[in-house]
C-alpha cells in the first residue's frame, strides 16, 4: 500500500528531477570522456564568476537583513494587536509572495526606474543601483516573515511573559528572556527561507539588475542563452546546487528545533487592542511601511498600464504587429491558463500522493528522506529545473522538446513542494484515534479515508491546488528556458516586451503584468477565504 502510494511521486522525481540534474552534472564535469571535478575550481577562479558569486551572496544577506528589519515589527503587529481591517490586510500582505517575479520587477521598474514615479516627481532613479533589487526582495518576502514568525508569535501564550513580569522582569526583560528564545528558531527559519529565495532570485534581478548586478541564476541563464557555454552554465548550476543544499539542511535543522515543546494557545485569544502611545505608533509605522513598500508599487504598475489614451496598451496586446512575437501578446493569457491547469493537476496528484505516503505513522527513514528531496526543487531554483529540462529531455530516450507538456511538467515540479507543505500538516493533524473510531464502527480502510480524512483535508487540497495554480501561472525561471517562441506564457511575454526598446513595448509589458497580477491576486484572495490556521507554512 505504502509502496504504491510513493512509487508514483518517486518515479516522477527520478525522471523529471534526478535525471536532468544528473545530465547537468555530466555536462559540466564529464569533459573529454573523464570526470573532472577540478572544473569547479577553474570556473570559480574566473574573476567575472567570483564577482557574480560575491554579489549573489551579499545581496542575499542584505535583502534578508532588510526584510527582517521591516517585517519583524509587522509580524508583531499582526500577531498581537487587534485592529479593524486586520484580516483584509493580512491577506493583502500575502499577495506579493505569490506574485510572479516579472510582475514585481515590472512594478518596481514603474516605481523607481527610468520614467518611473520617483523619476517624474524628484528625478530619483534606483534601477541602476542595488536598492531596486533589495526593495523588491523585501516586497516579496515580507509575507514569509509575517507568516512564519508572526504565526508562531500569535500562538505563544502571553501569560509566559506575564509570569516573568510577576517575578520582577520589566516588559523588555520579559520579552528578551521568554519570548525571544521561543521565537528565535522561527526567526532563523524565516531568515534562511528569505536568504534562499533571494540567493536564487532570477526574475527580479533579470529585470531590475543593471550591468554588474548579476546573480548566479541570471549568470546561468546568460551563459546558456547568450554565450551558449553550456558547460560553464552546468558548473554554475552545480555550485548553486551545493549552496542551496547547505541552506536547506540548515533550514530543516531549525524547523526541527522549532518543534520543541512550546506553550501554544489559540492565536485568536492572544491579540488585543493597541494600548498606549508606543503601540499605536508601531501600528501606524507598520501600516505606512505596508502602504509604501507593498501597495504603492502595484498601484503605480496599474496606473502606468492605463497611461495611454483609450486603453492603448491593452488594445495593442490584441495585435501581432509589434513584431516581438509571432502571435498577439494577448494569446499568452490563454497559453498561461492552459499550462497552469495541467501543471496544477500534475502537482496535486504527485504532491497529494507524496503527502499521503509521508503522513503514515510507520513512515521509515527512506520516506522521511524523500520529504527533504521533495523540497529540493523549491530551493534548487527554477532555473536549474529549466536548464536541466533543456539539456536532458531533448534527446532520446526522452525527447520532449517539441511537446507542449514540457512546460507544465517543469511548472508542476516547482509547484509540488507547495502542495506537500500545505497538505502535510493537515494530514498529520488528523487524529489517528478518529480513524480507529471509524474502523471500530465498521469502516474499511478505503471508507475510513473517504469518511474521515477527505472531509478534513478537502479544504487543504483546494488551497494546495490554488497555490500550485498561482505558482505555475507566474513561473518564469524554468519556463523561459523551454517555452517555445510561438507559445509564450504571460511572464515570458512580459520579459520579452521589456527587453525591447520603445514606449509601446514598455506599456504593453505594464498591461500584461497588470493582468497577471490580477489573476494571481484573485486566486490568492479566494484561497485566503478557504484558509484555516493550520494549513501549512506558506
Amino acid at each position, binding site marked *: 500500500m505504502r509502496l504504491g502510494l510513493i512509487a508514483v511521486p518517486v518515479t516522477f522525481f527520478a525522471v523529471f528531477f534526478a535525471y536532468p540534474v544528473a545530465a547537468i552534472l555530466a555536462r559540466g564535469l564529464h569533459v573529454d570522456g573523464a570526470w573532472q571535478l577540478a572544473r569547479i575550481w577553474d570556473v570559480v577562479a574566473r574573476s567575472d564568476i567570483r564577482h557574480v558569486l560575491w554579489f549573489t551572496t551579499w545581496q542575499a544577506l542584505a535583502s534578508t537583513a532588510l526584510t527582517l528589519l521591516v517585517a519583524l515589527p509587522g509580524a508583531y503587529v499582526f500577531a498581537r494587536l487587534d485592529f479593524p481591517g486586520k484580516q483584509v490586510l493580512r491577506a493583502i500582505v500575502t499577495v506579493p509572495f505569490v506574485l510572479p517575479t516579472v510582475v514585481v520587477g515590472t512594478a518596481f521598474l514603474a516605481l523607481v526606474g527610468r520614467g518611473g514615479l520617483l523619476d517624474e516627481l524628484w528625478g530619483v532613479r534606483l534601477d541602476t543601483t542595488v536598492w531596486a533589487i533589495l526593495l523588491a526582495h523585501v516586497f516579496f518576502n515580507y509575507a514569509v516573515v509575517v507568516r512564519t514568525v508572526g504565526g508562531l508569535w500569535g500562538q505563544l*501564550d502571553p*501569560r*509566559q511573559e*506575564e*509570569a*516573568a*513580569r*510577576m*517575578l*520582577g*522582569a*520589566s*516588559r523588555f*526583560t*520579559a520579552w528578551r*528572556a*521568554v519570548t525571544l*528564545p*521561543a521565537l528565535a528558531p522561527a526567526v532563523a527559519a524565516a531568515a534562511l527561507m528569505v536568504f534562499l529565495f533571494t540567493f536564487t532570485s532570477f526574475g527580479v534581478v533579470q529585470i531590475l539588475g543593471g550591468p554588474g548586478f548579476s546573480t548566479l541564476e541570471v549568470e546561468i541563464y546568460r551563459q546558456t542563452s547568450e554565450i551558449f557555454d553550456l558547460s560553464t552554465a552546468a558548473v554554475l548550476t552545480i555550485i548553486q546546487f551545493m549552496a542551496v543544499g547547505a541552506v536547506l539542511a540548515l533550514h530543516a535543522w531549525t524547523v526541527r528545533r522549532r518543534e*520543541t*515543546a*512550546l*506553550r501554544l494557545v489559540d492565536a485568536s485569544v492572544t491579540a488585543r487592542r493597541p494600548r498606549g502611545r508606543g503601540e499605536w505608533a508601531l501600528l501606524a509605522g507598520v501600516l505606512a511601511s505596508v502602504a509604501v513598500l507593498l501597495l504603492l508599487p502595484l498601484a503605480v504598475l496599474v496606473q502606468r498600464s492605463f497611461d495611454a489614451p483609450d486603453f492603448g496598451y491593452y488594445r495593442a496586446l490584441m495585435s501581432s504587429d509589434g513584431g516581438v512575437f509571432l502571435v498577439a501578446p494577448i494569446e499568452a493569457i490563454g497559453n498561461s491558463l492552459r499550462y497552469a491547469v495541467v501543471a496544477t493537476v500534475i502537482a496535486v496528484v504527485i504532491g497529494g500522493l507524496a503527502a499521503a505516503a509521508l503522513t503514515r505513522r510507520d513512515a521509515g527513514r527512506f520516506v522521511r528522506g524523500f520529504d527533504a528531496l521533495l523540497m529540493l526543487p523549491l530551493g534548487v531554483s527554477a532555473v536549474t529545473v529549466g536548464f536541466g529540462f533543456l539539456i536532458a529531455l531533448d534527446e532520446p530516450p526522452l525527447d520532449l522538446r517539441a511537446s507542449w507538456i514540457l512546460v507544465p511538467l517543469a511548472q508542476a515540479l516547482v509547484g509540488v513542494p507547495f502542495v506537500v507543505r500545505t497538505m502535510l500538516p493537515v494530514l498529520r493533524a488528523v487524529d489517528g484515534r478518529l480513524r480507529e473510531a471509524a474502523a471500530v464502527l465498521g469502516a474499511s480502510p478505503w471508507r475510513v479515508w473517504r469518511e474521515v480524512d477527505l472531509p478534513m483535508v478537502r479544504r487543504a487540497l483546494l488551497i494546495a491546488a490554488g497555490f500550485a495554480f498561482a505558482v505555475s501561472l507566474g513561473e518564469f525561471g524554468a519556463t523561459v528556458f523551454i517555452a517555445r517562441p510561438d507559445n509564450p506564457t504571460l511572464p515570458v511575454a512580459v520579459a520579452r516586451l521589456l527587453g525591447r526598446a520603445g514606449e509601446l513595448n514598455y506599456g504593453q509589458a505594464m498591461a500584461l503584468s497588470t493582468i497577471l497580477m490580477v489573476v494571481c491576486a484573485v486566486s490568492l484572495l479566494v484561497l485566503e477565504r478557504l484558509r484555516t490556521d493550520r494549513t501549512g507554512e506558506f
Partner: protein
Amino acid sequence: MLLGIEDATVRFGGRAVLDAVGLGVAEHEIVCVLGPSGSGKSTLLRAVAGLQPLDSGRVLLDGRDQSGVPAHKRGVGLMFQDHQLFPQRDVGGNVAFGLRMHGASKGQQAERVRELLDLVGLPGAAGRAVAGLSGGEQQRVALARALAPRPRLLMLDEPLGQLDRSLRERLVVELRELFGRLGTTVLAVTHDQGEAFALADRVVVMRDGGVAQAGTPLEVWQRPVDEFVARFLGFDNVVEGTIAGEAADTPWGKLPVGESAAQGTRTLLVRPAGVRLVSGDAGLRCTVAARAFKGTHVAVHLQPADAPRLEAACALREAPEVGDVVGVEFDAAEIVVLG
C-alpha cells in the same frame, strides 16, 4: 491590611467583569475567592498583579495606591492556573528566574533554589527539564518559583485545578501547612469549594463580578446568604416558603424554623442532614428515586407527590432501596432562612 481593594471595576466591552469589588487581606492571612467560572475571580487577581488595568477603583498594597506601578515593581507573586513554567529552562532555571530579575548573585540563587526545592519536596530536581515533570511536580515547581523572590503577597489562580482528586486533597493540606509555617500572605481563587474551605482563613464568594458573601469557612458553610451561594456550595434543598411564627409553609409542608426567624415570604435551605427518614405512614410521603454512595453517608434522592425533589443524607446501613416509600420529617437545626 496588607492588600486593600476598593471599588475595583473592570469592563470588557460594555460588560463589567469586576463590579465595584471591595476586599482586604491582612498580613499572614489566607483568603480564598470562590466562584463559578466567569464570576471575575481571575480578573481580580490580574488587577492586583497589575496585569489588568482597572477602569475605576484602587488597589492598595501596604496602604499605598498601586495605580501606575507596573506589574514587576509590585512585589507580588502569582502562580498561574496552568503554571506557565518556561519550557526553555530547566527546573532550576525556572525557580531562579525571579531571583535573577532581582539581581541575586549566582551563589545566592543556587542556595535559594536548593532551599525551595527542598521545601516543596523536590530535592535535587534543579537539573530536570520541565517537560518531563508530572502535573503534581509542575505544581510544586511553580510554587517554588513564585515563592523564590519572597513576594509580600502570593496569589494563586486555581492552584490545584488540573490535578486529580486524591493529589489535590493531599496538596491542599500541604499548602496550608507550608503557608502557615512561612507566614505567607495568600490570595487564592478557585471554583472548588472543598479546596477553598480547606485552604482559607477567610472565604469570599463571587458572583457576576461582585462579592456575594465573605466570612470564615464555617460561617459561609453554616449560613449561606442567598440561594446562589447555597446552590454553589452544593445544597439543592432550596425552596420558597411563607414564615409565620415558628413555622414556614412550603411545598414540602410545614417546616420548623426557630423562634427568631424573619417573617414573610423567604427562601429556605434544608441541609440534607436535616431530612430525617421515618416510616412511610408518617410525615411527608416520598418515593426513593435514586441513591448515591458518598463514602461517609448515602445521598438519597426523594420524590414527594407534588413537590420538588429532596436530598437526604442517610447513614450507610439505614439507607432505603430505590422504589421504597418513606416518610420525611425535618430538623429545625438544619434549616436556614436565607437572605
